């Protein structure tokens, strides 16, 4: 068994006793997915294949906002809060990078 490590684009990859640890930088997948602010970020590099909402529409938490395709599978991105679609910064067919802001929802205050 070998322990090894490597620095790749600011992330430290460590293989230690049979497990890989990743010491992530800021532009991480988990940050993109766990965004709660009404911003929908792309959780992966992929292609926008469907935008289901338009600007001004009211959405509830869990509503389908858009569909991204990566590695031949479809992923549905859903609203993370109740609000109104304020901005759509992508269109069908766009190739997008991890962490890119795709849709902004004006969060409704309770």
């Amino acid at each position, binding site marked *: 068994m*070998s322990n090894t490590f*490597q620095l790749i684009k600011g992330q*430290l990859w460590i*293989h230690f006793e049979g497990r890989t640890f990743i010491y992530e930088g800021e532009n991480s997948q988990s940050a993109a997915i766990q965004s709660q602010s009404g911003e929908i970020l792309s959780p*992966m590099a992929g292609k926008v294949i469907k935008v289901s909402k338009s600007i001004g529409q009211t959405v509830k938490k869990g509503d389908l906002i858009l569909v991204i395709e*990566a*590695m*031949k599978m479809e992923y549905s991105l859903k609203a993370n809060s109740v609000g109104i679609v304020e901005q759509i910064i992508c269109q069908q067919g766009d190739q997008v990078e991890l962490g890119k802001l795709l849709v902004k929802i004006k969060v409704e205050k309770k």
Partner: protein
Amino acid sequence: MKKFSRIAIANRGEVAVRIIRACEEFGIETVLLHSEADVGTRAYRMATKKICIGPSSTSESYLNIESNIKGALAGGAEAIHPGFGFLSENADFAEACEKAGLVFIGPSSDSIRLLGDKISFKNLAKQANLPLIPGYEGDDQSLERLLSEVEKIGLPAIVKAAAGGGGRGMKLIKTIAEAAELIESSKREALSAFGSDKVFLEKYLGHAKHIEFQVFADSNGVVKHLFDRECSVQRRHQKIIEEAPSPSLTDELRRQMGEVACRVMALGKYRSAGTVEFLLHEGKFYLLEVNTRLQVEHPVTEEVLGVDLVKMQILAAQGEPVFQENQALAPRGHSIECRIYAENPFLGGVPSTGVLGKVIWPDGPGRRFEYGFEEGDEITSFYDPMISKVIVWDETRDRAIQKMKRVLKDSIIFGVYTNIPYLIEILSHPEFVQGTMTTQFIEKYFSAPLEKPELNAEEKMFVEAAMKIGLPFDGISSAKSPWQSFWKDK
């Protein structure tokens, strides 16, 4: 028929490498038909000739029949191996090869139409009175009709791509409310992956086991089955772990299913390697579909039987005998395959793309690594997330599981997240260890993302301090802990 001197490969990744290896051993040259994105891959570095057939997008390259045919002809190939996925089960492609004077390494276009088209296959099996799952496979593909059929079949039901495979376009419908969205999504995925949006519906059998039989038919019409594999460990209808033989079959079931598998292939006048898939539900088996191609999981059959299916395909395509006289086909020991997916197991399996860093495969007896990418190669979002396969063989199932866990722990892939931590958990689960898992196994026990392993406070401090002062991070350490070596290397 004469022997091939050059074979074109209409595929990419690890399967392209697998085919190149078989060709090399036969002294056959290869032409890799690749997309613009796939210049930095292992198959590209290995092939005798490479011909770019189009841009990264699959519809303009790997799924484009004309570009593939043109490429193969320009490369001076006499035959095309389609691998799996892409055009491998496309009857129009097989026919285009036949018309262009290229030998399609696989069944005839007629056999693909009969057996590979899931709807035609169901009709054929129905006529022969073979056991099928209840469902709808009609020509009326309107949403209204499909929705009313879903209600007729009863929930849960499954919608599948007629031209599909590998779980693409397959969706489980649990409530009527979501049925329309799932059917439309299935049609989109099917169109993008297979070039046809035709779907069919089936009753969903819960707690079933996925068992399949490898069949091989040579050019003289001799049809033999090469025993069974079990692939019950599936997620989103995509296989993750496969093994041979199945731990679930009695000798009697194995005999009966093997017979049905051979009958199906004989009905379709099959030639080359193919697989008949079954569901085993409460002790009864049902035909699921036929895969008219080599399967991703073919290595586990090769390991327990001591055969080389790709070479057998090449021989059959050359019109040569494939089976030795008095060749006894009997499985020995146990083999397991784990598919390595580039995905983040700590975030529920979302795709992970990027440039690969270090990749280390811990080789040894009974360990086999099928991989298409090496350090410096980029894993892109254009293609399937499967980047490699790890296959082990040992004398018993328990020992094969034990070996696989060790091998996975010692396999190193940097640069993209992989499902390796997830595979290790699955292999340790009591239901997998007992061999009683069903196709719902993953959904039942592994639907939540894995807990991300965290560095402890001391280790974190070391790493942060080390990153600040910019130590030479690139290196393999023989020291017991990488933390130690950060300081040693100073």
